[in-house]
């Protein structure tokens, strides 16, 4: 366990080095969040009654999404991993006395968290002081806050275990670029990054909630905004847990099979 912790530490600290990138990221995400809210505001003024969330709920949702973007963005991949697979350098990693799945998992966590840590506080802070209804508000009660914390951790784990499957797909493909773009757009869309899931047609919503993608950013942010009640929140958290375990088991099985193939074929 200790080796994974120090591996995490190294990656995390390395990720903190990028000062200008953090400022640029904060500015970008702030502008992005603002534009998104203005877009929804236009729709809100046209049809307040058709709006599936209250506007303050949506504001909180969008700002949370921007603040924690680095944790949930689907298009971010660690190119070192893809390269080590396609170039065959993975042989070196196999020589280390570590589980390769866990190592990559930790690495992804560390990179994403280090990016998030530098960016989320300035965004949240400024977003809190914006004029209503565009500002971010606190969760409705302390229980939602606690549930949110549990849920964001699980959501993060679900996303990483899903992106692990995309890394692993590189073992089976000559070039993973296509798969990467395809998977990215599917995740982004069904996770509610393009438009939040409550804005999807009612008929589609039950299916959407059941898919693993809704268990990524959608669940924690909706809990935070108070859009879903406590019972629904607990159910969603249970679903998150199920998806995390299922995806992780799938990933571990697939990577084992892929590695076996490599060892047999000699890379």
């Amino acid at each position, binding site marked *: 366990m200790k080796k994974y912790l120090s591996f995490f530490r190294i990656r995390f600290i390395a990720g903190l080095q990028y000062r200008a990138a953090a400022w*640029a990221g904060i500015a970008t995400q702030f502008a992005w969040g603002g*534009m998104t809210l*203005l877009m929804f505001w236009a*729709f809100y003024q046209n*049809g307040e009654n058709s709006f599936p969330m209250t506007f303050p709920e949506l504001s909180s949702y969008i700002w949370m999404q921007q603040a924690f973007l680095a944790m949930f963005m689907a298009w971010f991949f660690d190119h070192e991993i893809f390269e080590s697979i396609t170039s065959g350098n993975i042989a070196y990693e196999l020589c280390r006395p570590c589980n390769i799945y866990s190592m990559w998992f930790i690495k992804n966590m560390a990179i994403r968290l280090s990016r998030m840590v530098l960016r989320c506080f300035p965004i949240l802070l400024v977003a809190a002081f914006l004029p209503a209804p565009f500002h971010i508000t606190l969760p409705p009660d302390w229980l939602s806050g606690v549930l949110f914390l549990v849920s964001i951790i699980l959501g993060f784990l679900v996303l990483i275990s899903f992106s692990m499957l995309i890394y692993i797909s590189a073992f089976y493909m000559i070039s993973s*670029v296509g798969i990467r*773009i395809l998977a990215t757009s599917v995740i982004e*869309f069904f996770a509610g990054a393009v*438009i939040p899931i409550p804005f*999807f047609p009612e008929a589609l919503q039950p299916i959407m909630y059941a898919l693993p993608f809704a268990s990524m950013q959608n669940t924690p942010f909706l809990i935070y905004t108070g859009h879903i009640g406590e019972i629904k929140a607990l159910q969603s958290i249970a679903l998150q847990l199920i998806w995390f375990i299922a995806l992780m088991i799938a990933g571990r099985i697939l990577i084992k099979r892929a590695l076996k193939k490599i060892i047999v074929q000699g890379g």
Partner: protein
Amino acid sequence: MKLYFKYVAMLLKSQIQYKASFIMTILGQFLVSFTAFLGIYFMFSRFHSVNGFTFSEILICFSIVLMAFSVTECFVRGFDVFPRLIQSGNLDRILVRPRNEIFQVLTSNMDFSRVGRLFQSILMLAYAIPTSGIIWTFDKVMTVVLMLIGGIAVFSALFVLYAGISFFTIEGLEFMNIFTDGSREFGKYPLSIYGDGILKFFTYVIPIALFQYYPFLYLIGRSDNIGLIFLPLLGFIFMIPCYCFFKFGLRKYKSTGS
């Protein structure tokens, strides 16, 4: 010019060598913009209109922006991935060749998989043209053409600006995404829906609205001012400061080598 087409042929030849990957990438590009389309579709099945713009009208706006953007991404890709050119040292190679730097950067990279997006935008336009209720007279067709040309000009200028900034900071470049990816993303809707301040910004600072919003008003019949269809051409003026900035960055590169 002949040399340019030789480059195009060569780059195309090397990209279609990996057939499966190339097709998958095109598909992926298609799907990326398709989800953006679905987003709009879902919003409109709920709200029916925004600021008086109908679904078909929004699709026309979006498809023109997307088309201009994907053409730019395909042919001006060299500036889009310019930081890589610096980091790999290939900019040095460009500088020891007896040709204009802009020309060489343009020909250093092209991304033909962007036809996936182009295809998406053509589909949307094909759907919206008959359903929008616009009577397609010559001036309306001209408006679309000029919007496209102006869009390509402004997006190219933005990419050149992006490359210019990468001489000074690679890390800080992310903020340029607001203007490049952001204008594709938020240009889906006519810029007026974001409010007056934003519209002014995208008129006077980053002139996206010049090819996206004002001529669009004429196109859908909200304005009778035929002068609006020539506004996209002002986008070419925007190229001048961006080009100068790139040149300025190049001079700095030559004096620091980093």
